[in-house]
């Protein structure tokens, strides 16, 4: 049901913005405690080697050194969310160059770094497996016991052979994408100390305080109540802080030495040791009938997880779920592998496995449209999912589906309507223009996995509210959004709403900040909390008035009902007088669906949709592609704060642009050569031109005030839209991202294009 709102839907300046802009906000990397130790890591010298011996005796004598830790100091030296395949400190083997063999804690940064040089590690190098296709071969050198396939699965519906037989056009291609590096501006950083109650407190950039807490207590075998994890404002994450980084090491140092510690990765450590977007190889054979109906999709997905699984099992599921696009296809056959190599570890990155497969599928669809002589948007619209449809996996879509609206918005956009004019317009003789489109789909929440979020709401004595949840503020604006939702749910002025976030000592578990789920989960849990508070108040009033109070509602900072009206201050006082807590908890469980055979979390109940239009200019002499304009269209349900929404979509578009054109890590036999921002280029203000954002508000009944998720959808269709625009401009299909000048130059040359 649609409700009227005061704060939800309103453009409000974020409460954290000014402090951040003035440099006053304290991030984890900004804290320097008295008596603090500096931590430095001794990382592997080889992408793959057996450890013969570790000798830390010289390092221990190095000036300023307080302690050196190795695997012997870690009681349970394996961790991981899906597979416990990752050592905290390497014991028998190193499997990539980011692996840590020992850590040093010293009085100063320089002394810690100096001592790392004094650690002697004897290695016996092993064969380096850097190519996932090689790694998959049965005779490949195994990186883990049990071989190099971390997970493989096959999911089929219908019969693809029949589908291809009935198809008029069938296209078959192989696509590749490079591992994208998050390059958040604040690297992995944290500090730790023992608080006055003797609790080891780790304050570090992250996305899930309770998960980080779990990884610490399970590896160090500490009593859970002896560890607290706090995540302050984080200087960017995008999925790259979904896994633990510095947390376990900090807890270890503080636990063993009793002293505060600081561990902040340098930029090159961050690029080498932090997680990445999975490099991908995707093969697709896709067929459509003469009247433009998709009939079959035969897909092979190979994702390179690097040395460890991290969140890869879930990422692979998202790839499988999204590789058919937002379309109805009766026959699918999807084979997928998550493969170990000695490359950098891959895990979550905005889009979580979807951008790679959509780079493939949206070019397949485009090519089919061209082959059938149909308009690419018309073709997509003919196949677009609608509410009530049965999706490829046999699940019925009963929640909001805005893909048709997104595609129609693209179709009506001047950029699309004028694309042939734009293409033929006169410009420099070596420039070719083109316009491309691509669609996107992404499930949000954790799909068929259990997904629960809790928040607590404290009614303060001053009549204000404090909302507490373990959501993390990674830049996306969740704190602001939660304040707006709370203000409307409790009908109170937003200035009176305080938000406390991401602290296992103070906030209940709202679970992970990923999968674009936080706004949705926290919002729904808040709704429950509001109901619970009203129930509590009704009970108190019933006792007070000696007759049953059935009706009560929030209104303008008051609780009102027939014949009564109490301010929040009064209510707070009443609760205290009755010996009741002023805090209520709201818990929301995402309705469960059964996973389909062969999957972990497919399907989702809820999906976001989107589409991107791109205008490109291809320089056929140099192969350089520029993007004068991107239009990002997204179905995100009800918009909570337009400024935050457009900011998320613009930022996602720019990251998508980097993924599409610029961001190319050079990896030589497992060794990353591009370890800084001058060799691994992310978009600068000169690379990003006009970005127009069009929200399509398809109301989601289950969402708080109709809202869905917003974090990820904007990145997914950017690279394929640019690829399709390049095709429109120069009639070649770039099947490998990033689409660097070198690649485009050769494609254009092969196609024999010349300056007019």
């Amino acid at each position, binding site marked *: 049901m649609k409700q009227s709102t005061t704060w939800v839907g309103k453009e409000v*300046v*974020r409460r*954290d*913005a*000014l402090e*951040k*802009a*003035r*440099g*006053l*906000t*304290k*991030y984890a*990397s*900004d804290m*320097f405690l008295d008596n603090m130790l500096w931590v430095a890591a001794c990382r592997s010298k080889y992408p793959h080697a057996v450890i013969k011996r570790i000798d830390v005796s010289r390092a221990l004598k*190095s*000036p*300023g050194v307080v302690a050196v830790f190795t695997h012997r100091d870690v009681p349970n030296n394996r961790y991981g969310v899906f597979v416990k395949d990752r050592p905290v400190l390497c014991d028998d083997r190193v499997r990539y160059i980011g692996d840590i063999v020992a850590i040093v804690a010293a009085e*100063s*940064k*320089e*002394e810690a770094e*100096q001592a790392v040089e004094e650690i002697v590690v004897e290695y016996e190098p092993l064969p380096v497996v850097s190519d996932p296709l090689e790694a998959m071969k049965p005779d490949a050198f195994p990186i883990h016991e049990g071989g190099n396939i971390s997970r493989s699965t096959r999911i089929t519906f219908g019969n693809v052979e029949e589908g291809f037989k009935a198809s008029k056009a069938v296209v078959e291609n192989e696509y590749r994408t490079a591992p994208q590096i*998050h*390059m*958040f*501006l*604040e690297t992995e950083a944290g500090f730790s100390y023992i608080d006055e109650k003797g609790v080891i407190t780790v304050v570090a950039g992250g996305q899930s305080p309770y998960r980080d807490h779990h990884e610490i207590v399970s590896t160090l075998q500490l009593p859970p109540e002896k560890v607290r994890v706090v995540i302050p*404002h*984080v*200087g*960017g994450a*995008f999925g790259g802080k979904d896994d633990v980084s510095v947390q376990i090491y900090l807890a270890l140092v503080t636990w063993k030495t009793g002293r505060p510690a600081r561990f902040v990765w*340098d*930029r090159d450590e961050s690029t080498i040791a932090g997680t990445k977007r999975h490099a991908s190889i995707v093969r697709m054979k896709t067929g459509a009938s003469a009247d433009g109906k998709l009939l079959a999709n035969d897909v092979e997905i190979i994702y390179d997880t690097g040395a460890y699984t991290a969140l890869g099992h879930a990422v692979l599921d998202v790839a499988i779920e999204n590789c058919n696009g937002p379309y109805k296809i009766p026959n699918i056959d999807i084979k997928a592998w998550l493969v170990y190599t000695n490359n950098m570890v891959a895990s979550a990155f905005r889009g979580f496995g979807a951008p790679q497969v959509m780079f493939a599928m949206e070019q397949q669809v485009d090519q089919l449209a061209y082959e059938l002589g149909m308009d690419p948007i018309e073709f997509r619209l003919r196949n677009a999912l609608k509410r009530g449809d049965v999706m490829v996996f046999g699940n019925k879509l009963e929640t909001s589906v805005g893909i048709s609206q997104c595609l129609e918005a693209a179709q009506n956009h001047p950029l699309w309507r004028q694309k042939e004019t734009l293409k033929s317009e006169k410009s420099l003789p070596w420039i070719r223009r083109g316009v491309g489109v691509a669609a996107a789909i992404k499930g949000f929440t954790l799909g068929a996995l259990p997904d629960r979020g809790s928040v607590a709401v404290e009614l303060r004595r001053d009549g204000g509210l404090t909302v507490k949840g373990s959501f993390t503020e*990674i*830049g*996306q*604006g969740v704190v602001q959004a939660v304040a707006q939702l709370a203000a409307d749910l409790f009908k109170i002025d937003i200035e009176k709403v305080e938000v406390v976030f991401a602290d296992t000592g103070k906030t209940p578990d709202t679970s992970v900040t990923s999968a674009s789920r936080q706004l949705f989960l926290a919002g729904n849990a808040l709704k429950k909390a509001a109901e619970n508070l009203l129930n509590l108040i009704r009970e108190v009033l019933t006792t007070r008035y000696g007759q049953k109070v059935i009706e009560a509602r929030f209104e303008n900072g008051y609780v009102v009902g027939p014949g009564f009206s109490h301010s929040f201050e009064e209510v707070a006082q009443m609760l205290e007088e009755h010996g009741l807590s002023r805090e209520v908890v709201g818990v929301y469980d995402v309705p469960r669906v059964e996973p389909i055979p062969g999957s972990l979390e497919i399907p989702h109940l809820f999906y976001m949709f989107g589409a991107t239009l791109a205008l490109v200019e291809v320089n056929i002499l140099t192969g350089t592609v520029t993007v004068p304009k991107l239009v990002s269209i997204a179905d995100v349900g009800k918009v909570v704060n337009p*400024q*935050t929404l*457009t*900011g998320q979509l*613009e*930022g*996602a*578009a*720019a*990251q998508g642009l980097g993924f599409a054109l610029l961001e190319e890590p050079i990896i030589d036999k497992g060794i990353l050569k591009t370890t*800084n*921002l*001058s060799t691994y280029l*992310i*978009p*600068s*203000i*000169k690379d*990003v031109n006009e*970005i127009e954002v069009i929200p399509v508000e398809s109301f989601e009944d289950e969402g708080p005030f109709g809202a869905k998720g917003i974090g990820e959808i904007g990145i997914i269709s950017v690279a394929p839209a640019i690829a399709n625009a390049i095709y429109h401009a120069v009639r070649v299909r770039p099947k490998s991202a990033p689409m660097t000048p070198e690649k485009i130059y050769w494609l254009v040359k092969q196609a024999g294009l010349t300056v007019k």
Partner: protein
Amino acid sequence: MQYSRVEKEFFFRLNGEEVRVRAPPGYTLLEVLRHILHLTGTKDGCSSGDCGACTVLLDGRAVHSCLTLISQVEGREVTTVEAVDEKVADAYARHGAVQCGYCTPGFVVATAYLLSKMHNPSDAEIREWLRGNLCRCTGYVKILKAVESLAGDDG
């Protein structure tokens, strides 16, 4: 070679006040600001001159403090984001140009410098002057709007 911590005393003006600080001579201005003085508005995004998060004004000119040795600062005037005219930060906040905010102080200082040199910069000039500052969150759209809102403003 054994590292030994040799320190020297340095003197400079920081945000209008005189400071004397003992630091290893190899330290950068960024290290002195953050690690010794704990003045952390100036951020460290790369320590190698590539991201602009560490931008400060040195005698009124924008520099990367991660590439500026503390010895080069001797006797000079340093202005960090904490002392830059608040209206610049305010424009960033109001236009939604702040997400994670880790890049923002650097942008704010670079913008203050740009406006001190150019009253009414064009879109192309803003892009040229801010090209050394990287932001991974915003896509720059709102950053441009924020800077444009300050252009030609005499207040």
